[in-house]
């Protein structure tokens, strides 16, 4: 057969301007999914300090100076962590909302409105994220 020419995947995503709702939803869902599983690993790693705390000195636990408490509160004192937390919330909320949208699609409900439900997920994510900023940033030692 004759030679042929394939434009490959890179150029594909170069056409993002032409992507429609369903495609964006897929990309965002994928992105947020990876963030969440990545976070889950980190989360467990951080929480593993609890093992140290549990096997450490009970007095320190009482004094709230055990490794677990100090690590967590130390992290929480960092502004950047708070911002990241807001990001995580946004990611999780979008993943949840779009996940619900996908579950609906799986059940064959409202397929005609799939684009609208994607936009709704986006907007709701934005609203929830903004609304939760005060809670997340309260008490941070800047």
């Amino acid at each position, binding site marked *: 057969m004759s030679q042929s020419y394939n434009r490959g995947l890179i150029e594909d995503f170069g056409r993002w301007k032409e992507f429609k709702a369903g495609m964006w939803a897929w990309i965002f869902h994928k992105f947020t999914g990876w963030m969440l*599983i990545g976070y889950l690993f980190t989360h467990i790693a951080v*929480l593993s300090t609890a093992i140290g*705390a*549990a096997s450490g000195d009970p007095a320190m*636990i009482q004094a709230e100076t055990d490794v*677990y408490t100090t690590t*967590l509160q130390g992290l929480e004192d960092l502004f950047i962590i708070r911002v990241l937390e807001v990001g995580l919330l946004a990611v999780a909320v979008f993943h949840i909302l779009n996940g619900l949208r996908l*579950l609906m699609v799986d059940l064959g409900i409202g397929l005609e409105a799939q684009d609208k439900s994607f936009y709704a997920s986006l907007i709701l994510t934005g609203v929830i994220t903004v609304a939760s900023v005060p809670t997340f940033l309260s*008490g941070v030692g800047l």
Partner: protein
Amino acid sequence: MAERYSSFAPGGTAWLLQRITAAFLVVVLAFHFFQLHFVNHAYEVTFLGTQARMQNVGYFLTMVLFLIAGAFHGVNGVYNALVNQGLDGTPKKVVLAVLVIAGGALIVQGTYVALAMAGWT
């Protein structure tokens, strides 16, 4: 020639479990966020508080299930994403093995952490 797909390799179970875990995760993840960011603020978390919650068997079980569901959901999701992009053959088997081990390790470690939190170690 036409590739005939005669070998019976169903993907339906994983697909279904991904949905079921998703449905479960919606509930617990919302609960989790609410609990640790709105009811108790994250910056106020102490080992004592954590221990108090963990010692409740219901909460403990929920969290472990949450972990298992999350690990499966996440790892399976990652695996699917890679297969979707054409992962095949030996690399695919390797990736699957790595992911299963990582997922397993995550669950074991996480459960161990939870036990430690509850002080049952």
